[in-house]
């Protein structure tokens, strides 16, 4: 079925609230999912895959600063989804970059990293150049079809859309421990857009350019956004957790009269 952006954002926000997200986190998470879906980057499919994890994640610990100095910070996300835990880590990087010109933030132990893009778009909208880098977390074994995949997402300051490169690295380095972190570089004054070097042996898996992404957005606004019916129903069911059962008292709480046949 097709839905509007506003509907998608609104339902996601309610569903996240129903999952126990604080209001601010629910709004941020909805932004991230809806942003990806708007640009046809499969935000809802990613949410669907991670929904069970989100519902079972009852750990309330906020991200913790492991190390910080003037222009560098390392945070432990305690295995949370970036939907729940990344916004303040990114805001910390933003603050440092504004003060020092450039900042590096490493978020360790986080899930669903691709969804961080929506929040990066907000930082870019506030005038920051941002690049995020991460590798796949699974054990890499090319023999069984599990290559090392790297993803780089770069936003130019004040641009609503990124340049995205996803590629498989053929020459796997010796140090290839599973990596569930994400590294971000933010710069006040210089572009950090990804540009692949040709002297490395990589397979380009996906390349999203700014112009193509803008076309996706235009299409979504004209035709609506395609969503999976089953997932939509699931999100709706979740969102009803926020609603209060109706009683005679509650019906009078709306303040309406009993008849409108006048």
């Amino acid at each position, binding site marked *: 079925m*097709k839905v509007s952006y506003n*509907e998608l954002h609104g339902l996601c926000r309610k569903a996240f609230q129903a999952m126990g997200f604080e209001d601010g986190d629910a709004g941020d998470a909805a932004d991230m999912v809806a942003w990806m879906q708007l640009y046809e980057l499969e935000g809802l499919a990613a949410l669907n895959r991670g929904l069970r994890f989100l519902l079972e994640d009852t750990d309330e610990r906020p991200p913790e600063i492991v190390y910080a100095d003037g222009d560098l910070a390392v945070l432990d996300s305690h295995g949370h989804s970036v939907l729940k835990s990344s916004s*303040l880590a990114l805001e910390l990087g933003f603050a440092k970059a504004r003060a020092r010109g450039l900042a590096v933030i490493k978020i360790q132990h986080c899930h669903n990293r691709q969804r961080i893009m929506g929040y990066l778009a907000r930082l870019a909208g506030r005038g920051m150049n941002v690049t995020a880098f991460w590798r796949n977390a699974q054990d890499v074994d090319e023999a069984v079809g599990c290559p090392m995949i790297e993803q780089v997402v770069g936003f130019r300051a004040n641009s609503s859309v990124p340049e995205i490169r996803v590629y498989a690295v053929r020459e796997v380095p010796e140090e290839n421990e599973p990596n569930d972190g994400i590294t971000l570089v933010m710069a006040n004054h210089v572009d950090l857009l990804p540009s692949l070097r040709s002297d490395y042996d990589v397979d380009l898996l996906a390349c999203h350019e700014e112009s193509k992404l803008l076309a996706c957005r235009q299409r979504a606004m004209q035709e609506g956004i395609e969503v999976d019916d089953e997932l939509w129903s699931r999100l709706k069911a979740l969102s*009803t957790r926020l609603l209060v059962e109706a009683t005679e008292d*509650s019906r009078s709480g709306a303040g309406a009269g009993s008849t409108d046949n006048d």
Partner: protein
Amino acid sequence: MSRNHQGARLSSTEQRLRLRAPDDVMQLERLGSLHASRLSFVRSLVRQMAHEKWNITTTRFELDALGHGVAIYCLQTPSKRYHGVIFSQALEDSARSDRVIAEAWDVTFGVVEGDVDDALLEQMAANVPLQEAGRQHPRLLVLSRANRSLRNFASFLEALSSGQQPDPEWLTRVGYLYRTTAVYGNGKFGIADYDRLKDNADFHRPFSAQMLGVYLLRHFSIQQIEHMARARAPETAAPLATSLKRYLGIGNSTGLGMAPFLINHPQLVQRWVESRELALAEVTAQVPGEQERSRLLALLKRAETHLRQTVTDDHEQTLRNQATVASLPELMTWLEFVPLSPELWQELIDWSHQQHGLEAQELVNTLLLELYPSIVDRYEDLMAVEESLELTPDMPLVHLKQVIETHYDWALRVDFSLAENRHWFWYRSVEKEEPRLGVRDTEAGADKEMKLAIAPRDADTHAAISQYLEDHPRALVVEFLIQCPRHKDIVRRIQSMASTSFGEIRANLWARDMKPMHLLRTKLSFFGASRFDPKSDRWVRITLFQGAPLVEELNAEPQDPVAFDDWSFPLAPQIARTVLPEMTADPRQGNTTTVGGMS
């Protein structure tokens, strides 16, 4: 520029100095006393339609004798074409409800961007009547529904079919044949997102597409009642007199559903109120001449009569109307006899502020705005805003504390430990998510409270910040939030709104003496509502477009834009209720582009 000139522009500094204090303007009771003004959305829309020579034609009008069927109107603007599609159906009395929990209505309708082909009409016929339960097309800009005012409908039909004119007094009690019960825009149920309209020259102003939908419904209501009269008594039926057509508006019935919008869109509220206040500040600096004095006297007289003709069963609103009416003779006498001085308008406002009730004060302000269209109308293009509440993470936390104490002092003054200050909670019911109010500690549901009350959240965050600063006096905002992330949302709002004056409604929405009606009237006044007719302290009926020019007057391309725009505070027409010439008009005659088909 010298202030001796009419329409003198102020320096921004002088304009700011003349602004009313936000602590006064943003009091809930004062906001709940606002009247529709020339900056209200219905007024702006009518001016825009006339200025840009919009043209509205009937392209399909297929109703049976009972008025049931389909009508389609084509709107041509200089840049685009739109269509209003209206479905009218029979409705059991038992199903007629103005509440959001209703599932059927007398009419349902939508405004479509572009043309309506058979496939789209079929899709709309299957979904628009279902409203929230349907899946709407992304080319719909507006989705709405309305119920008949049964008494007015019956009396109008009876009169017209017997060749008489209805008694205008009916419209002083209820100013319409139909009242809408929701007018949806911005992506609801699959329709187009507002984002799509931002760059649309026709509907970039807030709620302008929704108001167009209501205006088309008004036109339909006139055509439909004449059609039904003609079908009932073809030999005797009379057309509705033009003065009565003008006096016919469209009602709106609304409840607490309006409240969340006002709280959740503080940047929009800021634009609406600030525009009005900036315009008023400029007006107060104008040096009045005899012409302006006479004009204001005439407007006061008209408003006085309008309010006398406004009938409501609500005791409190009746008293407020009477108090306003009682204030006006003295105001008019004063205005008639005082010498014209450069600060006359400011003196008028100051005196009214001291002596009169809030509704009379705001009436004076509203009418002053009418005197200087060239100053005031510039602000209608400033009513929209790209909304975005963002953090300033590198702000020193002690600075944020100061910001709260400076800009949210009104929230910090409330003692939330007192039961009377934490009486209500806001929630959504499982019944179509209808917003409702419950009594805390008495009714179930407080654990699912909507966080609409900003004041207690400000106070809570201020307390947390104060405590954190004791151990971390040099901390940044982001460092505080990493430790206390639940405050992120409200900190974002505080930081974003601190640079504005008129975005936050300065009231404790938990307080026992808080009146939700004031919230509803705040928003409705910006829409352009008149005839506030409360049905309880949280439910109100109002009228839109009463007195507005008719479609045929718009299509005739008015030569005098000032007269065309002068329709506020309309008066009941003096009608000779005798038999008029037999009605022969077909709704499509004279303004039809495609008879019986689609365009």
